[in-house]
């Protein structure tokens, strides 16, 4: 039991759980980067702005790619080949789009882990976390449908595996397959559906980003120029060094129209790549363009590797467990104290409203004034948004806003006592 103001104030209010260990790991990494560079250019301090940067890059290059895309078979493949080889900047736009997608997934995961490890996702800060997990899944869907749009051999294998995967879901498996295929067979509706998912969820990402930012005052959405130049430069260099090519040309594994899905089965003892190559050979397709090996983008194709390795039931149990990400904020008990305004003392200067990092303070007309008096402003606190940080207390010269933990007068009394 604390017996003095000093004890109350010096007792740390950080939960001593796994969070402390994770926090030390994150801080240790950032400390090394700070010493090597500068804390104004530390990419870990822009862990939210970097995904934003990659998103804009993907959007800009995506518009170019969309102008040159025709969602039918086989024109999807041929038009992409044409754009890559013959349209000015086509190769670069395609390469930057593809590698920026990987870059986006990397920085989003760094962002998620950093927010988690430095304990900034609980209590009043839960909305960015929940929308963030949703955004992660939207990003995943946009990424994987992007691969399917090309309609090369890899897309077709991925389509076959996805349909097979959905088919193993009890009760609604058949309906899910029809939903993905746009019917009961693979037709041009399938590509159209992928195209819709790809663009629709990309728009959805922008919408949920608004909710992701809405509880933050002046969110950092852009990085300093040296940082984004470096990341853009890295993306361009990789796009030039490892040009993106289609994997296997037409004829397709699903020739003609109205064909059903070819089941994808593996024989014992084969690797994933060998099984795919076997399947391609069995379909009588010759690999004539690009490299003969399959490039597997593990950032977006990891569920297929898992589905290949484990039984369907276990696979779906694992994927359902990933939903637990939404509940991470509830793993630690969070107290939710909030600031309160002393109405008589508030003069309506708006400094707390401008300083609050979480948009938890708004100004309203003072309701207690007598009629006929000139309207004055009063600060009010949105309790659900308040993290009890005390920045508003620091901004108030009139001691009109306080947090429950300790009041301004108690701090001043402690100062006087410590100076004596």
């Amino acid at each position, binding site marked *: 039991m604390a017996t003095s103001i000093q004890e109350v104030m010096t007792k740390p209010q950080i939960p001593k759980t796994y969070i402390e260990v994770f926090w030390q790991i994150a*801080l240790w990494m950032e400390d090394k980067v700070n010493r090597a560079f500068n804390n104004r250019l530390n990419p870990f301090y822009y862990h939210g702005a970097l995904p934003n940067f990659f998103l804009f890059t993907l959007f800009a290059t995506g518009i170019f790619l969309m102008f040159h895309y025709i969602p039918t078979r086989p024109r999807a493949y041929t038009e992409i080949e044409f754009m890559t080889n013959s349209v000015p900047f086509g190769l670069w736009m395609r390469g930057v789009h593809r590698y920026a997608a990987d870059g986006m997934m990397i920085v989003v995961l760094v962002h998620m882990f950093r927010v988690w490890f430095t304990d900034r996702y609980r209590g009043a800060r839960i909305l960015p976390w929940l929308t963030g997990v949703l955004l992660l899944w939207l990003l995943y869907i946009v990424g994987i449908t992007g691969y399917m749009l090309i309609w090369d051999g890899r897309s077709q294998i991925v389509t076959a595996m996805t349909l097979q995967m959905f088919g193993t879901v009890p009760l609604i498996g058949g309906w899910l397959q029809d939903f993905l295929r746009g019917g009961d067979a693979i037709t041009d509706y399938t590509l159209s559906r992928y195209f819709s998912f790809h663009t629709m969820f990309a728009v959805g990402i922008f919408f949920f980003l608004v909710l992701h930012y809405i509880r933050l005052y002046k969110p950092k959405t852009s990085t300093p120029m040296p940082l984004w130049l470096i990341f853009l430069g890295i993306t361009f260099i990789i796009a030039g060094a490892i040009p993106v090519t289609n994997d296997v040309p037409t004829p397709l594994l699903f020739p003609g129209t109205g064909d059903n899905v070819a089941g994808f089965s593996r024989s014992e003892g084969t690797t994933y790549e060998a099984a795919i190559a076997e399947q391609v050979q069995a379909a009588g397709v010759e690999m004539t363009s690009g490299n003969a090996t399959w490039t597997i983008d593990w950032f977006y194709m990891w569920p297929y590797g898992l589905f290949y390795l484990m039984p369907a039931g276990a696979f779906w149990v694992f994927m359902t467990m990933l939903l637990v990400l939404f509940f991470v904020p509830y793993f630690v008990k969070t107290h939710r104290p909030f600031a309160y305004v002393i109405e008589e003392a508030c003069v309506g200067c708006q400094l707390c409203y401008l300083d609050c990092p979480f948009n938890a303070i708004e100004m309203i007309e003072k309701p207690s004034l007598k009629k006929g008096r000139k309207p004055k402003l009063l600060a009010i606190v949105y309790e659900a948004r308040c993290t009890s940080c005390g920045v508003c207390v620091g901004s108030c010269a009139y001691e009109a806003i306080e947090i429950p933990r300790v009041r301004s007068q108690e701090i001043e009394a402690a*100062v006087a006592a410590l100076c004596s």
Partner: protein
Amino acid sequence: MSETATATAAPEKIRIIGFVCERAYDLEKILNPDGTMIVDPDVRLIGLPCSGMVQPAFIEKALEAGAQGAFVMGCLLGDCYFRDGNYVIKERIERTRRPQIKRKYNLEQIGTIWFSRAMMEEELLGLVASFKDRAINFCKAHPEKLPAAIAAHEAELRKSRAAARK
């Protein structure tokens, strides 16, 4: 041997007050329960949830109460747990954000330390010690600029003006 009492006599007690964000460093490692630092009892710390909670009035009260220096310690710039509390107090001290430190208080007696829990304790103690030296040297070199001297000077001015009006 009589000496004229000069204002440059060494202060009797040394007090450095620190307003410290509890996330910037693990305070239990460096503090006694009464708020004095283990390695240097002249330095007394008050733990707060965020460095942005510091009102300029707290720093001013510390200096008025006779402290030679007052500093604010927070997370590294760019890494405030509550996003921008450390930027906010930095600007209040630099007098670019209201409420600001009043002009009559000397910035040499006010310090900021930006720190991280992953950094070494020796580095922190070194930063605190160098701020303490800076503040004490300023007090010795410019006693006329200290709040007590200014208050005494203003009281004399008021007296002489009152006398002149009579």
